[in-house]
């Protein structure tokens, strides 16, 4: 998984991140870093704060305090131009969120053309290549609403890739899919990881976490309880809480 441990600077570094919804503290002083080219999976029970952490990393949720260092800028600082930084961070959602008023190709070209990253022709070229990579080149003119769930999610990945991001965030990308379709999305993600894309994946797919990721982060009640090498995490977890959580998954 092309991980270069000599690269000293993390691509994104989260420091003392705190976030609460009302009086409920969801993230309690999270510290966490992702190196370039690294694939990190975040696992944990529902409500442990993993999605919130991911959504804080491109500021879809505004943190209460703390820092998120990305390309030398603090995303969490007041009045930072978040739009420009978000161009470098792709995000894939659990519910796909394809633009329902557009077809597949326009879904992919909307942001590059609107943000003047590319001309229309170039953007379409890039979109075609990305759609081909996710196996959907026959659907470029199909309305977004006419696709199946797995197809939608693959388009969503292609759409994010069209912005040529440095970092991809996946928020439970397979949780809304039928079990037999999960594989087609995971394959695309596996290819992406093999190409060296830096990825942070919130998932319940333990096989993916074990086999594809370079680092596994286990979150419990708003803190990172344990993190480390996937082999070590899955074979020899240190905390009883982690063992308990993993045991429940390995039962199935």
């Amino acid at each position: 998984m092309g991980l270069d441990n000599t690269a000293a600077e993390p691509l994104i570094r989260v420091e003392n991140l705190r976030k609460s919804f009302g009086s409920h503290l969801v993230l309690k002083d999270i510290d966490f870093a992702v190196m370039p080219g690294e694939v990190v999976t975040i696992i944990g029970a529902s409500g442990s704060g993993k999605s919130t952490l991911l959504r804080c990393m491109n500021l879809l949720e505004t943190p209460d305090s703390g820092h998120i260092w990305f390309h030398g800028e603090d995303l969490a600082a007041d009045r930072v131009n978040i739009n420009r930084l978000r161009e470098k961070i792709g995000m894939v959602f659990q519910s796909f969120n394809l633009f329902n008023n557009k077809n597949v190709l326009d879904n992919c070209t909307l942001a590059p053309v609107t943000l003047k990253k590319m001309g229309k022709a170039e953007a379409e070229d890039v979109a075609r290549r990305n759609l081909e990579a996710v196996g959907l080149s026959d659907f470029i003119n199909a309305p977004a609403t006419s696709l199946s769930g797995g197809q939608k999610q693959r388009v969503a990945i292609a759409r994010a890739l069209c912005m040529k991001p440095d970092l991809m965030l996946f928020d439970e990308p397979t949780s809304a899919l039928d079990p037999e379709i999960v594989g087609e999305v995971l394959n695309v993600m596996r290819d992406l990881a093999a190409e060296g894309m830096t990825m942070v994946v919130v998932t319940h797919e333990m096989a993916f976490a074990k086999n594809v990721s370079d680092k596994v982060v286990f979150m419990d009640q708003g803190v990172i309880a344990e993190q480390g090498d996937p082999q070590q995490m899955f074979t020899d977890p240190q905390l009883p809480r982690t063992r308990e959580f993993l045991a429940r998954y390995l039962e199935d």
Partner: protein
Amino acid sequence: MSRLRKIKQFVISDHRYVFLATSFVAAVGIWFSLQRRSAMSFLRGAYTVEVAMYWFLMAWLALSAVALVWKLTHWKGDAYQRTSPFTKPAAKAALRLGSYAVCAVTAALFVDRAVMGFLSVVSDSLSHDKNPSDFLSSIVYMLDKSYGIIGQGILTTVGLSVFGTLIAFVLAILLVFLRIQQVDRCDNDAVRFFKTFGTAFAKVYSTVVRGTPMMVQGMLIYFAGFGLLRNSGMTVSEIGKVWSTFVAGLVTISLNSTAYMMEVLRGGIEAVDPGQNEAARSLGLSQWQAMIKVVFPQGIKNAIPALSNELVVNIKDSSVLSVIGVFDLMFATKTVVGIYFKQVELYVVAALCYLCLTMVASWLLGKFAQRLSVEPQPLTSVSDMNATVGTVAGTGSSEYSLDKKKAR
């Protein structure tokens, strides 16, 4: 074309309750034949024909009664099918012809009594030189004398509501953008100020306009405008040229409708899945870009049914503007009432005119909305390795209709 085919299909296919339906038609025909013949009746001289028609219909009723009794006495299993003379193929063919004849005879009687009767009332009352006391004749007489006034009223009402709704639509789009904007983290102080101010303005506007009656608003706007122009030194007749009651009415109805349409648009926009906005923002689009490119096109689609309803509402509600002297249908009707002192007759006419206008408007808007909401095309390509045939095309439209429901 397909509707014609449906009617044809209906006429030639077998129906279980054909006797019930045709005997009802026959009864109606008999009732018509018992009515008084009018001056223009074409069956006036043909007494024998009419007697034949009457007895034919009576015979049909008797036949239906026999069929009914047969059915009641042979209701077990397929007894009726086996024993009844009515179910034999030859009898069935004859009965079909008979049922056509019943319809034809009733139609002839309807034209003779109802249509020709109405026409003779009309021609009769047109030749009157004073208002007849009879309800229908009086309406015809007054309409003949004052259709110009009523017609002008209708034109004004249509103009007020159509142009008022169009202007309000444009204003509502502008206002809803003010209303729904939110302060973004990267905004500077000036942008923050204008966004907050804009939202507050839209909120106050909507509350005030929706919380006061349009009649009061009309009065206020008309007299405020009048007063301003008077203070600037214009004479009353000069003011009449620029600030006519029609212009004041149009301004009132536009400003009033803006508030309602803004709320409808806001509902439509808020019914759009927040994930759409999040996805757009996650790609780096600004709040404004995400709104224009992604959220608003879906929101306005949600709002179209309720928005078009606003035209229908305006057709009716423009009637309150008659208080400032706009020559709309209501004012025109009042004017004619002032001439003839026949209140009920004329307000019935006004009500019917409003009903026709609103029905035509909602029919046209329905057609328009149908053309706008293009359903997703079914896919033709299946070469994708994981293409799941069954799921194609279904989900999108159902999501859309769900959103529409929410918007209401």
